[in-house]
């Protein structure tokens, strides 16, 4: 292992009912994924304001992933559909601004899909690592 290996910073928003539980299950089953992923718990994926995603990139995140219940399984009936639409619009705008589409992702992970959660995170970290550091939106004022 290299000492100065590049480590991306990944912010993952997980809905409380499915994906956060899926992440817990990944833990219960000791399924490894990189520590670069930091999870923020939200009640529903539709609680994720595009502002949060922008803020993360502004503060130096290299990738943002939003995980919610599978379509049709939302605890709040329709929240994940809002997420899907909003994020599709946001991600294409971010892409236009130079934040590659690969750095943003919406995934459906159920509470039973610990393995899918780990696999998704592994894949996402790998993808973002390959892209390298994200500097496009970084707010220089935030750097010390």
């Amino acid at each position: 292992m290299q000492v100065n290996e590049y480590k991306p910073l990944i912010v993952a928003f997980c809905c409380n009912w499915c994906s956060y539980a899926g992440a817990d299950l990944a833990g219960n089953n000791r399924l490894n994924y990189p520590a670069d992923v930091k999870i923020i718990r939200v009640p529903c994926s539709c609680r994720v304001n595009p502002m949060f995603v922008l803020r993360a990139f502004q503060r130096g995140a290299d990738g943002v992933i939003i995980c919610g219940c599978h379509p049709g399984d939302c605890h709040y009936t329709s929240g994940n559909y809002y997420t899907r639409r909003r994020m599709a619009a946001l991600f294409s705008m971010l892409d236009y601004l130079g934040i590659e589409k690969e750095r943003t992702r919406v995934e459906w992970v159920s509470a039973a899909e610990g393995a899918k959660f780990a696999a998704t995170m592994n894949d996402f970290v790998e993808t973002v690592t390959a892209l390298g550091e994200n500097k496009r939106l970084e707010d220089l004022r935030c750097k010390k």
Partner: protein
Amino acid sequence: MQRVGVFVCWCGSNIAGTVDVEAVSEALKNEPGVVFSTNYQYMCSQAGQDMIKEAVKEHNLTGIVVCSCSPRMHEATFRKTAAAAGLNPYMVEIANIREQCSWVHKDILTGTEKAIILGKAAIAKVNLNAPLTPGESPVTKRALVIGGGIAGIQTALDIADAGFPVDIVEKKPTIGGKMAQLDKTFPTLDCAACILTPKMVDVAQNDKIRIFSYSEVTDVQGFVGNFEVTIKKNARFVKEDICTGCGACVEKCPMKKNPNEFNLGMDNRPAIYIPFAQAVPKVATIDPNACTMLKKGKCGLCSKVCTAGAIDYTQKDEYLQEKYGAIVVATGFNPISMDKFDEFAYSQSKDVITSLEFERLTNAAGPSAGKLIRPSDGKHPHTIVFVQCVGSRCDACAQKGKEYCSKICCMYTAKHAMLTRDKYPDTEVYVFYIDVRTPGKNFDEFYRRAVEEYGVKYIKGMVGKVTPEGDKLKVQASDLIANKQLHIDADLVVLAAAIEPDKSARPLATMLTASMDTNDFFTEAHPKLKPVESPTAGVFLSGACQGPKDIPETVSQAGAAASKVIGLLCKDKLTGNPCVANSNELMCNGCSACANVCPYGAISYEDKEFRMPDRTTKVRRVASVNPAVCQGCGACTVTCPSGAMDLKGFANLQIMAEVDAICK
């Protein structure tokens, strides 16, 4: 700024194995707001909890961060601990350093590093936490059941049994619904009337149950525990409390030729009528479109023969305001119209009938007194063709019919075929099917009996065209197994029409802010775990309004809905989830975007007076969230263009602080 205490749990070696807990508690000591930081083997143990309580007292803590297992595991535990220490339970945040850190990372360096970051995020959040108190609202201890079929009847009886008053609103003149029209019921073949009418009598005699027949719900206000409902009692021109149901008026009425709805128009009824002998309430009703007294002011015969003096031609529609704690929707189903399926010649021949019409034809109380006859000429049919799946299982692009399986048709067709062969062994009976779907107790055995013991001819294939010619119905169909086209000269064709939700369901759903699917079936709160609750708190679902169902299923769902209602009505007060949305009135511009995305109808608008900088007052329309109804998903917070809407416990600033802490 809060005074935060940080408690890092080892969880034995579960956390301590891959996270240097000492380093974590040390690193978090210097975070803003933190005044105390420690670590312990088992934070969730009594000793660990006591440690937290003491620290709260000693360091005058206002916020607590526990770095431990998942909040899904012990958040409730630590909230109780906080409450016991005199803190607001919502001043606790958990950093999940077990499931999402120590268990998934092997390297102690990266594990520790991540645990510190997760701790920092939790501290950043707790610094912005505010004490939250769940709202409380009283519960009106009365339930409303909309629809008086078997679903509504069973629900009402079960609720009344638990001691709570129930009202049934039924739009027809009598309760009983579709089941009252049926002849026999599968798979045991007991007669529908024999098992239903005693239940109807139970309803009538139960002093906890009020029946509003010939009535409909026209408005619903309020929320769980506190619904205010307007019920419209349609004028039936007969005083319900005086009418004895003797039927003298029905006999004397000269306007005899009006299609009898109860027999699906296969015979006639007078302008004043009682739908059927066991009707509940057994009260006459005047059809205002048929009565000459009401139309032209001439006749009045019924009034003359009524010894009780119950007839009242001046009766008006009446509106009642009632309060309820819970509402059960049991609006049921109807067979779809056969308009778009005239390849089966339904509009062209009286001898092409739907299964429900067949049900009336074989019912002893039906238009033919139970004798199976052809409606056109009253002759006994010798060849009967049953067609399955008419309008069910259609693809959307076919632009007719329904996409779903209507579920009950396979079984009732097997029943019809079997009963026909049983009563009239000289009758040839063909059933054209696509699949025979019989998942239910004793269902497949029942269907096999129709084939094996009663000699019903089941043919896999579909009827393509029915041509009435002379007194025959020429049926052209395919037999897929024999790979042949069949031409059968039938006397009677019976169509198993798809079923659809009652037309009254959609306007009702709007009133209740309950959601529906594209087929107008009510949506349940969770397809597996909350099958009888609608997503709107306090609204429950019973029977076929939620999806196609047979009688046993309907009755079990009716009971389940009743138990949910009882559970709700048992409470004196409802405690809500305090993590609900709230709108900042100063920022809200009343655009309605939030109300449009709310799946629960928790958001309403009110006009409020605001003082302007120049000391004038201005009235603006602003959103207000009903905390008893809001479930806290946060969809509205993101939709709000002005940023007025926020979610308590998961506020914009709190999540943003977490993002900042992680990305630092």
